[in-house]
């Protein structure tokens, strides 16, 4: 089991919307790169009991077994956009590959 430290208070880590996230001045080129893997490979997605999925997604998940739009790719674009609002990025365009969606972002 993992020994977690105490959880932080919400306001310790969230920058208020009013914070000046961008202002005139030089633009920082070096990127922050975050990779979150939920399985070691495409072919080793975890078995997920339908009961753990939210609402109407259960039936859909069952239907999609073995199909292209499985795992994280079943998440609608607007849900990723809401996450990207937190990060302070906007979607410019999307390319849908056979096993991968590539979103080009602002900033």
């Amino acid at each position: 089991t993992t020994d977690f430290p105490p959880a932080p208070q919400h306001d310790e880590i969230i920058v208020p919307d009013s914070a000046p996230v961008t202002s005139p001045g030089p633009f920082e080129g070096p990127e922050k790169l975050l990779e979150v893997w939920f399985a070691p490979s495409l072919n080793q997605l975890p078995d997920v009991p339908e009961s753990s999925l939210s609402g109407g997604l259960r039936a859909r998940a069952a239907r999609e077994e073995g199909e292209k739009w499985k795992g994280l790719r079943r998440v609608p674009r607007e849900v990723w956009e809401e996450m990207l609002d937190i990060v302070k990025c906007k979607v410019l365009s999307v390319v849908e590959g056979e096993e991968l969606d590539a979103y080009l972002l602002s900033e």
Partner: protein
Amino acid sequence: SSLFVAPHLLILKTCGTTLNLLGLYRIIEIARAYCGYTNVWRCFYSRKSFFFPERQHGPHRDWRDEVDFLDKVFGTAGAAYTVGPMNRDHWLLYLTSPNTQPRLPYDSKLPSSLIAAPPSSSPPAAILPTKYQDTTLEILMSYMDPKARAPFFHTEEQTSSTPGHELGQIISSKLGIDELFPKDETTLDSFGFDPCGYSANAVIGTGMPEASHVEGKPGGGYFTIHVTPEEGWSYASFECNVPLPITSSSTKPPAVEGRPTLQKLIRNVVGIFQPCRLSITLFVSTTASGSGDSASSVLGASETEARAWQSFGTDLLGGDFVRKDRIGYEFDGYDLVFACFEKK
């Protein structure tokens, strides 16, 4: 900036003063709600040292804050590394051990409006497994030559009359970015920013290294490029996970006709952006490949460490560059080779 989403992983690469790590909580929530994923197999967070650290916000103000943030999510499963010279182009990495249950600092609950949103649909496609190869190359380049920076600036007339995607296409074609990989397997999406700057995402082949839809064909992958061309803090990055031919006498290369070797790809990219300084990192999964492919063997002409080091050596970029550092790491399940070069 770019976001890549595959069924089993998500890659978020953002520049400027974006709050990349603040997206982590939502990513974990979304994966739980939509996919039932309660554990994170691996999490990687990395970046080069900032030009202007004082301009960053939230956890990105300092590497220690970023590590604290991640530790609060992953507990003792995470480890942080500083790689390279601290007073120049060092590189920072945080990674977790396999299969960790993340912890959110608040009650996880997505807004109901998001849960209710209908998932997109598309015709089904079969996924056939082939040999799994997880290799990621990253080239971080700074202080570009003025000639290399010039194509990324646009006049007011250009930006007012040409949409960003068209500008991106023009730049991609002019600089040969659309020919880094064979055109017939490249889907390129690029954008030219006003008044300067450039981003590109490319999906190569099927899009993921370990899957191929046609037997005998190599797996695909992605590459992504971001450029900030302004003098004084010019910067370009290239990241790629496409399987490449291996120039090894002992390792049979995969069938990747038309694709450049790793060394040729690095030279082509560096030739486009002409940096004065650059760092190169190569991450190779060692447990998943199961074939003894280490970062060093993929990089070079031999599986022996000594010869591999030599192949990622001073002559990688020809006589114009001098190698300042070369560092190797063996992580749990991954090998990493890092090297810095400077123009003579």
